[in-house]
């Protein structure tokens, strides 16, 4: 990478650059490259970027000043001077400068590293770490400032740069289930984390409509809520995430939960705003099938932290798939050393799901139903009770899945023969 930058610099005929200029250019180019590579111009630019070009000089001056401040802190640390006031000033300055707002609006992807750098410095000081560690943290902070400036420069110079669909650009998270064909879990449980890089660990979930959902959220970062707080706000279907996110940014006094009738009506539920290491759990019901967006409402975080929960109706869920999934949950519980929970889950599956399927199956293959009833009520539960080896439990599970596959085929046949009601 260094060679790459060097070649770029040579190409620009920039020789004998002092350390500061090199830093600035590398940061600018690196930041710009990230943006150009990451953002596909799909829609019109937001209003926020209007006039960005005219502010770059001011931003550069701000970044220079901030970098000087970082240098002063690292030097003061080497000199053994107290730093508390210096950190407070640095943070206050960073929050006050114009580039801060512009980064939040336009370059949010490069926003977390700045905070991470500042807090790495602060932590080093608190732990009385080595001066080299402080120097490294300082360099990291300055690098983040300059990269952010580079990002803004790239946008300003590209009239057609897109508003950042950051979540889409960076959403490589694993999806629960398998996209549109995902199976709604038997238990409406969403477990989600957010981190200091402003990312949720998962962005798509499937739940059953009309039934209570439990959402557990943990901020697994280290930064405090004041600077890197995260929450999960679940919105009603069709709510524009951007509109809500912008409104939320104006409500810091209410932990970034916007008030007013329209905003209140948009919210299904939300967690508390959490700092690093904190957790919250909420319950809500998505009454109707459809896609419900969710986001972190802390200023501008929605650009990176957003996703959706698909609520599916009973008729969209393949009950046999659901049975298989519940059985997998049961096996997992058994492997984790909780045979009672495993047994309870199997019996619940029998009562709440399989029973509803029996009718059509009885007409087509009563012996299959008899065998599956034995599986549910004797086969697996007995193995759980006996503390059978996992391999044996796995074999029983696979045998059940094989029979369930047959059941699925027979149910499809029954469905194809059903006459319309009206």
């Amino acid at each position, binding site marked *: 990478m260094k060679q790459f930058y060097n070649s770029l610099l040579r190409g620009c005929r920039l020789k004998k650059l002092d350390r500061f200029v090199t830093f600035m250019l590398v940061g600018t180019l690196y930041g710009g490259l990230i943006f150009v590579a990451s953002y596909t111009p799909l829609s019109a630019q937001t209003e926020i970027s209007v006039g960005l070009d005219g502010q770059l000089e001011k931003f550069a001056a701000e970044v220079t000043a901030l970098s000087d401040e970082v240098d002063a802190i690292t030097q003061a640390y080497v000199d053994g001077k107290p730093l508390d006031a210096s950190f407070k000033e640095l943070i206050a300055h960073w929050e006050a400068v114009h580039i801060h707002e512009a980064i939040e609006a336009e370059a949010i992807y490069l926003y977390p590293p700045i905070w991470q750098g500042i807090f790495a410095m602060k932590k080093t000081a608190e732990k009385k770490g080595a001066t080299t560690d402080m120097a490294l943290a300082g360099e990291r902070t300055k690098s983040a400032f300059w990269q952010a400036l580079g990002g803004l420069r790239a946008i300003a110079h590209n009239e057609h740069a897109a508003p950042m669909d950051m979540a889409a650009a960076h959403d490589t998270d694993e999806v629960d289930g398998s996209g549109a064909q995902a199976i709604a879990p038997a238990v409406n449980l969403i477990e989600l984390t957010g981190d200091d890089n402003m990312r949720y660990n998962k962005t798509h979930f499937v739940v059953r409509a*009309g*039934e209570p959902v439990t959402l557990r959220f943990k901020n697994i970062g280290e930064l405090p809520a004041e600077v890197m707080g995260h929450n999960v706000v679940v919105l009603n279907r069709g709510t524009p995430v951007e509109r809500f996110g912008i409104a939320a940014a104006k409500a810091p006094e209410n932990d970034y939960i916007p008030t007013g009738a329209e905003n209140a009506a948009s919210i299904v539920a939300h967690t508390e705003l959490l700092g690093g290491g904190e957790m919250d759990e909420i319950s809500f019901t998505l009454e109707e099938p459809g896609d419900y967006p969710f986001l972190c409402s802390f200023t501008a975080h929605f650009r990176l932290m957003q996703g959706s929960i698909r609520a599916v109706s009973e*008729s969209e869920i393949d009950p046999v798939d659901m049975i298989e999934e519940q059985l997998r949950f049961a096996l997992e519980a058994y492997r984790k050393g909780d045979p009672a929970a495993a047994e309870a889950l199997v019996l619940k599956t029998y009562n709440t799901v399989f029973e509803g399927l029996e009718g059509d199956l009885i007409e087509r293959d009563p012996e299959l139903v008899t065998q599956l009833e034995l599986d549910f009520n004797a086969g697996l539960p007995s193995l759980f009770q006996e503390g059978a080896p996992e391999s044996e439990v796995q074999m029983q599970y696979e045998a059940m899945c094989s029979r369930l596959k047959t059941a699925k085929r027979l149910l499809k046949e029954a469905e194809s023969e059903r006459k319309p009601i009206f």
Partner: protein
Amino acid sequence: MTRRKYLQILAAAGLLSPAAVLRAMANPLSAEAVDALPKISGPLTLYLGRGEGGLYERILDAIRERNPQMDLKIRRGTSSALANTIVAEAGAGVNRADVFWAIDSGSIGRVVNSASPFPISSSLSDRLKPGFRFARWTPISGRIRTIPYNTERLTKEQVPTSIMELPESGLKVGWAPAYGAFQTFVTAMRLLEGEASTRAWLRAMRKNTQSYAGEFGVVMAVSRGEVDAGLANHYYTLRLKKGRPDAPVDLAFTQGDAGCLLNASGALLLSKRPQAELFLRHLLSREVQGFLSREAYEIPLVEGVEPPVGLPDVGGLDLPKLDLERLADPRPTLDLLRETGVL
């Protein structure tokens, strides 16, 4: 028991007003065709107790499709949990649901007794068969307790017509004590015969019974000849007979006791919105009732719709005198089943 006597008993129990008795004794109106119903429009919130696999969902999809102006919101859960929710909401002065559709009358009873649903209009209840017209809820479809028996071992006449005589019949009987429907049947026996008689019956039965996990298992055991007879809801036998017409199993019915308890799914109105009652009219339409009978083997309780193939018309059966709403609390039954070692 004759229909007239049954109605008189209901009236004496306060379940039917004298006017209702007179009306009930009149011939019911035939079920409405869905084409005759006005279209539903506007918002409607349904609390739906889950049951019958996806068949209820299929009905809802069909109603939605026919009524595109209807904005239907559905909250799903077990019937008992939704009943508790409605009662809690009513206690808090909140009314979120327009209609509650439950799979068992016990849950309906809980709401009727605690949340004051709106009256069912006579224009709707008059479509129901006599004996199934209630002031503040309407049955949607029924299921009946039966005694499936092995036709290679017994004749129908050898099956007792009194459930209380079953222990002395000498028959080996299959049952599924962990099953909800069985427990509701024992609740009905407790209410009809008393705790002591039910306790004695359970103890006597234990000597010659074979337990199964589910009631389909009971019916299969009967057809295989593992047991002579069983205790089960009607539809398992009918479905088996549809798939295996030569299966050696048939249905017998006791008379006027818990052995032929007819339990019902039901619905009630929690708002005065016209679309709420119109929704119930759709559920009681000829087409929906026919679908429930044909596909779910549920017993239609409106006039003019055929019962499931293989089941006699309930009008010809001697059903027990019992307020179905009293079946709501299973706890004393569970205690009794444990005490007698059945569970």
